[in-house]
């Protein structure tokens, strides 16, 4: 579904990604792990089109999209829940969700809204209050739910567990698995590598802007080098 080939990206003159390649197939969870500053967020932003690339190709459903503007990529079915709970603070929770469907004003909107509330009932309770008055965990749920409102084919999740209590981490990762079970394709970026690989089908390891490992999630989890370097085991 998604193919990234030889992708490079830079902030000004500082290169961040060096010819990175990865693929995500229909219906799988792919985990992208690596330490802080490895370029994981940059890669997701480049796929979404909010960070320019300096080389390489991005194919989505076989068509090249690397020069498409960000809003058109959302229209194609790529939605992202960005790192750091980037919600629309002054707007209500429900307005945040409705804006998630900005490119998909169709008959399914009401149903997706109901699904979002069913997945995170606390959001229904707080639907009328400004998003900035939610707790960190609730804002994270809102960011994920907002991305789902676009009914994406491919969901990009950037650090969904960052800074959350362990119980909430489990709740969010369970939600990710249930999305995959319903047929969604997910590219998951996590610093918490063991948690991400535990629910993923395949994994990639990014290190200072280069892909250094890839493979089935289970074999990455069992790899002694991985265990020492990333999993803290």
């Amino acid at each position: 579904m998604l193919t990234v080939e030889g992708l490079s990206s830079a902030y000004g003159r500082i290169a961040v990604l060096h010819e990175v390649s990865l693929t995500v197939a229909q219906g799988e969870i792919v985990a992208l792990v690596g330490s802080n500053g490895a370029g994981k967020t940059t890669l997701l932003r480049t796929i979404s089109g909010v960070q320019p690339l300096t080389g390489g190709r991005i194919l989505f459903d076989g068509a090249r999209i690397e020069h498409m503007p960000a809003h058109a990529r959302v229209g194609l079915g790529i939605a992202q829940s960005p790192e750091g709970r980037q919600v629309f603070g002054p707007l209500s929770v429900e307005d945040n969700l409705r804006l998630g469907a900005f490119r998909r004003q169709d008959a399914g909107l009401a149903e997706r809204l109901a699904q979002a509330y069913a997945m995170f009932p606390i959001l229904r309770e707080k639907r009328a209050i400004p998003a900035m008055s939610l707790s960190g965990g609730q804002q994270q749920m809102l960011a994920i739910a907002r991305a789902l409102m676009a009914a994406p084919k491919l969901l990009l999740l950037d650090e969904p567990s960052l800074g959350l209590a362990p119980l909430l981490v489990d709740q969010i990762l369970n939600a990710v698995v249930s999305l995959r079970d319903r047929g969604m394709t997910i590219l998951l970026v996590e610093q918490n590598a063991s948690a991400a690989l535990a629910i993923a089908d395949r994994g990639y390891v990014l290190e200072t802007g280069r892909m250094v490992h890839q493979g089935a999630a289970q074999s990455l989890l069992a790899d002694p080098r991985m265990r020492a370097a990333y999993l803290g085991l």
Partner: protein
Amino acid sequence: MAEFLQLLFSGLTVGAVYALVALGFTLIYNASDVINFAQGDFVMIGGMGTVFLAAAGLSLPLAAFIAILAAVAAGLLLHRLAIEPARGASPVALIMITIGASIFIKGVAQIVFDKQFHSLPAFTGSDPIALGGATILPQSLWVVGGAIVLFIALYLFLERTLLGKAVLATAANRLAARLVGINVKVILALAFGVSAAIGAIAGVLVTPITLTRYDIGTLFALKGFAAAMVGGMGHPLGAVVGGILIGLMEAFGAGYISSTYKDGVAFLAILLVLFFMPRGLFGGGSVERV
């Protein structure tokens, strides 16, 4: 009492115009962080455009409509040719660009129009209406009524339509707005277009009272900027309250102290606000969760 009422009416009338200009500042500032000092020139385009089109034989409503469209076109061009190419520049650089644009618009207006003062006939007669010992011009009612209609229309647009919410979302978090599929460029152009329309409508409404000339925009921009600062830059309600406050202070200052210092009142208000509550009346403490 009669004098007080008289000053109150005139303060409210001019305050409504300042509030509209301040609202234009607010809309553009929210969507793009740009403080657009060409905002006053939209007022001029609305007034002068209507005067010259009406003189060319068009009916007043049609002339006003075309003049407002011309201002919208100027706003869109300002965004496309001056602001968009400089995206990512510092706020000070962007402010200088808008000041440059303002000078440019005045230069063009001198050539297209002329350097004389002009006026428009009042929309519905000019017989003053007596009220509590004071009088009020019918045109003042047009100004205040028009301002109220515009406020309500803008409020409904921002709060009740998806496109309006997209403007608010872009103001709140541009990255997130792009990630949900909002075309931020279009939203910014929309903010410039709508601000220009608001300014031009204010210009059409107020020209029968205050006269207009190619360089009238500077004063409106400064007063509107003062109003937006007093209310708290970026707050629509603050812009309205700030505009009316500045208008009332000017009228009462001119009536009870001296009309010589009328134009100084707005700047005194800015200084006081910056000294004592730099976020403005509605700015509050900008608390953000991290």
